[in-house]
């Protein structure tokens, strides 16, 4: 049986002993299969994968760009706020300085004004006192004369013999004088 098989193999060998000789039908099938697969890959597989890749890359890069933009905006805003804060501080300082200077100026003005006022008041008071004194002196001068004459008249009129009576007259005169001056004071 072995012999038979070997001889059969030998017969077969006559047809296809050389493994380097191709079967044209197989070549045709491989070529056709490869061509069909290549067409499918070119037409569908590669474009679909590439589209997905491109979309993904775009999504990632878009996200990065968006984040960078947001970052830039945020830092710009921060910078702006810092600048504003700085300006505001400077403004506040300036205002404070101005206020202080103004205050000092006002204070100085007030001081000089007050001093002037007080000097004026003092002056006025002095002048008033002086004038009143003058008036008092004038009225006293005129009154003392009349008083003296009135007193003298009374004393003379009452008969100057009685000392006691004379003393009473003087007392009454003085009392009159006091009530007179009290009424005048009122």
């Amino acid at each position: 049986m072995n012999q038979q098989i070997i001889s059969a193999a030998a017969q077969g060998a006559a047809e296809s002993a050389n493994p380097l000789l191709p079967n044209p039908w197989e070549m045709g099938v491989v070529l056709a299969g490869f061509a069909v697969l290549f067409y499918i890959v070119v037409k569908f597989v590669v474009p679909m994968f590439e589209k997905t890749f491109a979309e993904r890359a775009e999504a990632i890069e878009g996200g990065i760009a968006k984040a960078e933009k947001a970052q830039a905006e945020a830092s710009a805003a921060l910078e702006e706020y810092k600048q504003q804060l700085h300006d505001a501080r400077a403004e506040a300082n300036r205002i404070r300085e101005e206020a202080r200077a103004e205050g000092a100026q006002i204070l100085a003005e007030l001081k000089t004004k007050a001093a002037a006022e007080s000097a004026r008041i003092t002056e006025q008071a002095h002048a008033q006192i002086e004038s009143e004194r003058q008036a008092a002196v004038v009225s006293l001068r005129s009154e003392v004369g009349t008083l003296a004459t009135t007193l003298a008249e009374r004393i003379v009129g009452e008969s100057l013999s009685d000392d006691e009576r004379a003393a009473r007259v003087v007392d009454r005169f003085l009392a009159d004088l006091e009530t007179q001056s009290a009424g005048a004071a009122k």
Partner: protein
Amino acid sequence: MIALALPAQDSGTFTPPGIDQMHLPAILPWGASDGFSKQMLLVILSVVLIATFFIAAARKQQLVPGKLQFAGEMAYGFVRNSIAKDIIGGRDFMKYVPLLFTLFFFILVNNIYGAIPVIQLPSFSHVGGAYVLAAVVYVTWIGIGIKKNGLKYFKLATVPSGVPWFILPIVVPIEIISNFLVRPVTHSLRLFATMMAGHLIVMIAGSGIEFLVSQENVLLKGASVLVLVGAIAMYMLEALIMVLQAYVFTLLTAIYIEGALHADSH
């Protein structure tokens, strides 16, 4: 099946299966020596499998991929980035991605058949397919070279720059032979030979185990276990080689295309 039937006799002689057992009878008409073969069916099946898988994976186009899409993108990205982009370069590699991608997965699936029980037949264990693919690549890279550099391409490809004139008579024939004659042959035979050898080893191991088991001597029967262990180790190695050869074939294609594109700078 012929291979397994061969040494059924428990006489003392072992007839290993050879090249002639590489050819199965046809499927259609059944059992004929010529006709629609298992190889052809497997090639067609591979086209269907690859196309179905990648279209299904790529169809949804989600930005956050699901499992299937992720697997497809990994596979596609491997050829696109690790082979096409790395070898051919950043600017014009995209044009050649479809070819490299198709080559890689066409060869990969047709090789892996050899590692799948029952199928157990790498399509390129027959030389025809390997010739066809190598020819496609050969025509492609020469076409690219001519398109890029005109007919001057043949001078660029065969006359290396910076070589003294008196060595040129030796170098130019070597370049012609190595680039234009040997290259397509090695390109196709490398794939074919590894696949055929792997398939042959599986056949020999299978028939050897059967032969040993059918012996009456207990020690010889036991020795079949050793063959089985060796066969499993070879099977693992073959599985590796199947993937590796698909990669090597595609990588070489990329290198040839790159060489044709940048012939003036080589």
